[in-house]
């Protein structure tokens, strides 16, 4: 039973972690991407559609990536080039994603929701590790995206904190005009961050449909993108912190299944609401001490 809980925790944590890693990079460059939810949703839908019609999981993954990148590119054009209000633009993209995925979904599959399921992504057992008691199947017998998500954590951590690349990214997010003065192209870096994040968020969405649910329902992302935003804050804009926060939320989300099995008298809605309420409570506690990149959310134009 603990095994099942761990398994679910990792399942829930993976898409959040992927999206959060992407958002970390974006926020380090100074952009606040509220549209992350929309990118995830589009990634989820188009990944499934491509996998279903193209009979290829790989095609599905690629299309999921493309969808995430497309949404983020649209945001980039708005907030980097046009320097518009990032919150409103992001929200518009969330609505757009709901609309586009809904329209295309019903066009392809009709309102009856004739289930278009696919065979899910195969699991890859990591040798003897997969046979460990309790943690084995949960951690080491998963699909490729899970390994990717967790494997990226040290990579992102190293890239952002210890390389020159990461330094320039952080400079852009701290003080764009100083970065510009030193020859670091603020626009280029923010675009790059958004594209990279689009890849990761698209993959997060693809995970939802290709590995987790094996099908698509409207609004399947269910706010996970927003949870990723909170995870970035909770993780203090640090990849390892993100990992911890993602697992925390994954566990909170997994609780709903665990407790249903336990048959407690607590209503299941409590557990569905838990991650979101938890976010708010932790932010209220942490709020005064959070130190985001100094220029986060401020549109930047050259004088």
């Amino acid at each position, binding site marked *: 039973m603990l095994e099942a809980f761990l398994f679910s925790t990792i399942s829930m944590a993976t898409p959040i972690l992927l999206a959060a890693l992407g958002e970390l990079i974006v926020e380090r460059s100074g952009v606040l991407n509220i549209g992350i939810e929309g990118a995830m949703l589009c990634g989820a839908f188009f990944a499934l559609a491509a996998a279903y019609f193209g009979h290829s999981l790989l095609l599905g993954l690629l299309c999921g990536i493309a969808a995430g990148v497309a949404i983020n590119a649209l945001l980039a054009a708005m907030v980097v080039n046009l320097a518009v209000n990032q919150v409103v633009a992001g929200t518009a993209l969330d609505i*757009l994603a709901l609309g586009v995925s*809904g329209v295309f979904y019903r066009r392809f599959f009709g309102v009856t929701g004739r289930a278009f399921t696919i065979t899910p992504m195969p699991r890859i057992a990591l040798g003897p590790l997969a046979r460990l008691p309790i943690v084995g199947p949960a951690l080491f017998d998963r699909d490729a995206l899970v390994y990717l998500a967790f494997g990226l954590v040290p990579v992102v951590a190293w890239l952002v904190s210890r390389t020159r690349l990461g330094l320039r990214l952080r400079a852009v997010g701290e003080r764009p005009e100083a970065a510009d003065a030193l020859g670091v192209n603020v626009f280029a870096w923010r675009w790059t961050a958004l594209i990279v994040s689009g890849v990761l968020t698209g993959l997060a969405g693809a995970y939802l449909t290709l590995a987790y649910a094996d099908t698509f329902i409207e609004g399947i992302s269910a706010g996970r993108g927003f949870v990723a935003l909170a995870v970035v804050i909770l993780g203090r804009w640090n990849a390892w912190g993100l990992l911890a926060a993602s697992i925390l939320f994954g566990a909170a989300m997994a609780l709903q299944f665990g407790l249903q099995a336990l048959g407690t008298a607590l209503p299941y809605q409590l557990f569905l609401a838990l991650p979101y309420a938890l976010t708010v409570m932790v932010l209220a506690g942490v709020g005064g001490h959070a130190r985001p*990149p100094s220029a986060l959310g401020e549109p930047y134009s050259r004088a």
Partner: protein
Amino acid sequence: MSAAGATRRRASLAIVAALLKPIAALAAAFALVAIILLGLGASPILVLAALVEGAFGNWLACTETIVKATPLVFTGLAIAVAFEGALWNIGAEGQLIMGALVAGAIGPMLGGWAHPIAVTAILAGGFAGGAMWGALAGWLKSARNVNEVISTLMLNFVAQQILSWAVHGPLIEPARAYPKSAPIAAAAELQLYFPPSRLNLGMALAAVLAVASFALLYRTTIGLQLRALGRNPRASRFFGLRIGWLTVGAMALSGGLAGLGGGVQVAAITHRLYESLSPGWGFEAIAVALLARLNPLGVVPCAILFGALDNGSQAMQRAAGVSPVLVQVIQALVILILLAFDAGLFAARRRESGAASTLAGAGFEEARDA
């Protein structure tokens, strides 16, 4: 030209200029949607015709358009008021739900009351529920530095779950057959006029509130303070404005307006609570408010426009086989196009308000010295 004449001319030019952007944005949005439709193999003409027919084709359609527009006026006003104070309230959805919840909870208990009092009570409950939910986010921001974008987003989901729990649990109808609440007392129902139309006083109330909101924002000291805060929080410190109170108060009012929309829905249309309440009115309201340029008086016609789209979308599905959620695409495009048009205007507003509209400035720490 006399000074007064010049002022009048300038004023009318200003009105024309003000209307130009929203109309152009709508036209551009429709054009883009037409392209999408062509890509899907549907005919834009057919779709547009179906939309218009569905929204205004006959008397019943027209009344239904008004009915569908009513919640949008309430939530649109909620957004307009909050955004004027640079409070990015993305939680109108949750505030509407909480308002409906309170209304649906006290509704069944109002049986013995006189009709006007019962209606006032149920609507007041709606306002209170939403106001509490909005004030919560406002307090979190002013006292605990929690960015309101994230808190209101999260509270949306929490509200949804509270509603779900309520209709499955404590508020479930006596028969316990279906997850819905007991019906509200007949005394608390908003009367429907000209059956089978569902026309009710909700829209009238909404219109009155639009005028009241306009008066609040532009004719009172509090409204002036809120608008100053939204445009230049740095200077607001120098004016001795009580920023904490303004924040909580504005969020409470915003939430209350949205909650009232939920209350009206329960009192007039649904008469009870179901698990699914809003098809996204809280988000659609953003498009409504932006199209209305955050002017409460403009929210009414813009809400009717989007209500027409919502109403006509069912017919659009039947006639052209296109999903009704297409209207969400239109909503999103309108917002994006307006943002793009405003790229100059919003830039001025943003430069003016410094870091206020951002996480760093307003959510997490004091504005850094420029």
